[in-house]
């Protein structure tokens, strides 16, 4: 099933003449906001940004709030190493996203939306600015969208390079002109978000699914793929596969099928894969279905759908060190467990990479992981040592060979 990528192969897929009329928006505007949210809840779609929170429930929280104005923020700050799905939507089918944002705005009672694109995507920003002006020309944005009574505007804004701004509250701080440090939750953004007003922050891929859900109905969508986390999922596959790239698969497809049928197989001998970017845990079996409960069952997480495939030429010590270096660089420094923990973990792994590790250090890494998982303020710190711990669990011999 191709929902998000259906227009990707067409020439000029980024223009409104290829995308066509905003039919889903027209239908949505004839429904009551509560009815739209009921459809989205019926679709059982889980957020695609990594936390897998049910989208319909998030919208419901924001709709119930009596504080105005409300805002929609589309999170295009995809910094997770290995991920390039949101960039593809922005560059190849921005109108699907815009339509999703306008529908979300109507459903929760917002009249302003923002798209926060990371600074590393200059092309995406240009395509998006053009798409917004096209939508304005066609009367889908501005005062009185399609029919009188509903006004909506979308602003494109940008960061200046910080992975942690992918966290929804850090993103809000960044939009308000501050350092992007995740806020303490609660209050959640659906109560107090941008400018302390109720705000729904959704991933780009989540919002791009909305037009199809409205057009075909939530129940239709809920029957695609695996019943626990239905729909299709964009998978960014990179590393040692024959054809790396972006593929749309039904949830429930196994990692093995994705790598074999879509990517042409592994280059060399398969060793391990990260199923959802570097903040998830390495898996060594390929028969795991790509859906939320199955990946949690094998001790990993769905993450952002960034599959990094490693073969037997890669040293797991080196790979783990690389992952932790990234988190040590990107920690915002607000909370101590993450700020100190990522650097101490990097130092320990650096010793291993110079063949100077010790068995006690392996225990220390596990302890660090437990403390950071329990006490770090945001997802960055909680998951920073996931790849390290899973590498030690599955390839302990390699680490032991580096004991000096």
């Amino acid at each position, binding site marked *: 099933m191709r929902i998000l990528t259906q227009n990707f192969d067409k020439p000029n897929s980024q223009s409104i003449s290829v995308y066509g009329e905003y039919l889903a928006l027209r239908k949505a505007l004839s429904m009551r906001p509560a009815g739209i949210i009921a459809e989205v809840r019926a679709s059982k779609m889980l957020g695609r940004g990594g936390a897998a929170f049910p989208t319909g429930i998030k919208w419901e929280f924001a709709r119930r709030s009596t504080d105005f104005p409300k805002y929609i923020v589309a999170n295009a700050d995809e910094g*997770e190493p290995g991920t390039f799905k949101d960039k593809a939507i922005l560059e190849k089918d921005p109108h699907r996203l815009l339509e999703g944002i306008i529908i979300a705005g109507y459903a929760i009672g917002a009249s302003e939306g923002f798209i926060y694109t990371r600074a*590393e995507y200059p092309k995406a920003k240009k395509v998006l600015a053009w798409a917004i002006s096209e939508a304005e020309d066609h009367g889908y944005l501005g005062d009185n969208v399609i029919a009188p009574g509903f006004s909506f505007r979308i602003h494109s804004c940008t960061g200046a390079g910080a992975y942690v701004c992918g966290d929804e509250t850090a993103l809000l701080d960044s939009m308000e002109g501050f350092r992007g440090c995740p806020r303490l939750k609660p209050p959640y953004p659906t109560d107090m978000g941008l400018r302390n007003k109720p705000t729904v922050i959704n991933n780009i891929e989540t919002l791009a699914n909305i037009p199809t859900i409205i057009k075909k109905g939530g129940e239709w969508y809920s029957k695609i793929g695996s019943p626990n986390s239905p729909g299709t999922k964009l998978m960014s596959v990179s590393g040692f596969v024959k054809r790396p790239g*972006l593929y749309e698969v039904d949830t429930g497809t196994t990692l093995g099928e994705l790598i074999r049928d879509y990517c042409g197989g592994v280059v060399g001998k398969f060793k391990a894969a990260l199923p959802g970017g570097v903040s998830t845990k390495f898996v060594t079996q390929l028969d795991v279905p790509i859906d939320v409960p199955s990946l949690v069952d094998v001790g990993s997480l769905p993450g952002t759908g960034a599959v990094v495939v490693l073969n037997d030429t890669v040293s797991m010590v080196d790979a783990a060190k*690389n992952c932790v270096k990234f988190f040590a660089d990107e920690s915002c420094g607000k909370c101590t467990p993450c700020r100190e923990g990522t650097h101490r973990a990097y130092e320990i792994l650096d010793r291993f990479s110079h063949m100077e590790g010790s068995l006690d250090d392996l225990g220390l890494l596990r302890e660090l992981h437990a403390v950071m998982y329990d006490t770090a303020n945001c997802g960055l710190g909680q998951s920073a040592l996931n790849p390290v711990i899973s590498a030690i669990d599955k390839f302990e011999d390699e680490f032991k060979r580096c004991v000096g």
Partner: protein
Amino acid sequence: MFHQEGNGLDARCVKELRGLLEGFENKREALIPCLNIAQRWQHYVSREAAAFLAKETDTSLAEVYGVATFYHMLSERPLGKNVIRVCDCLTCHVKGGPAILGALKEELGVEIGGTTKDGKVSLLESPCMGLCDIAPAIMVNDQAFGNLTPKRAKDIAKAVKIGVSRSPAGRKRPGKSGLRSKVIA
């Protein structure tokens, strides 16, 4: 011509900043877009630019520097007119990123974070830029290059060293008429 002596703010840069600030009700929200503009014009955020923005957004200089040092696309010391960013995240790393970095260091004669003596090229390491499907990858200013070999990386660095530097206003070749792409910072 765009790189002014004495770090003074270019009048056109000030005009662009003021134009952007005008569109914001809460000036503080304009700070990061403004810093991006200053970076584009000056190749770093100069003290003058930081002081100007502190005044315009009604905050302290320390607060502006706090923000500018947090984000890694902003720099507090002058960078070259062209910036080569080398990805060092997992996919690029295992697919030969370190060799690409080594080749670029050799060709440019600088270390990570360094700028060539003529001020034309800076070499930086960058976290993932979403180019994993064409790993190992680099970005030269706004242009991505992937599936690199050390030799090709050296060729690109050579071309950047002798090539025309882009104008901060967004036009690629100064003097040649044509559509000026609007850069939204």
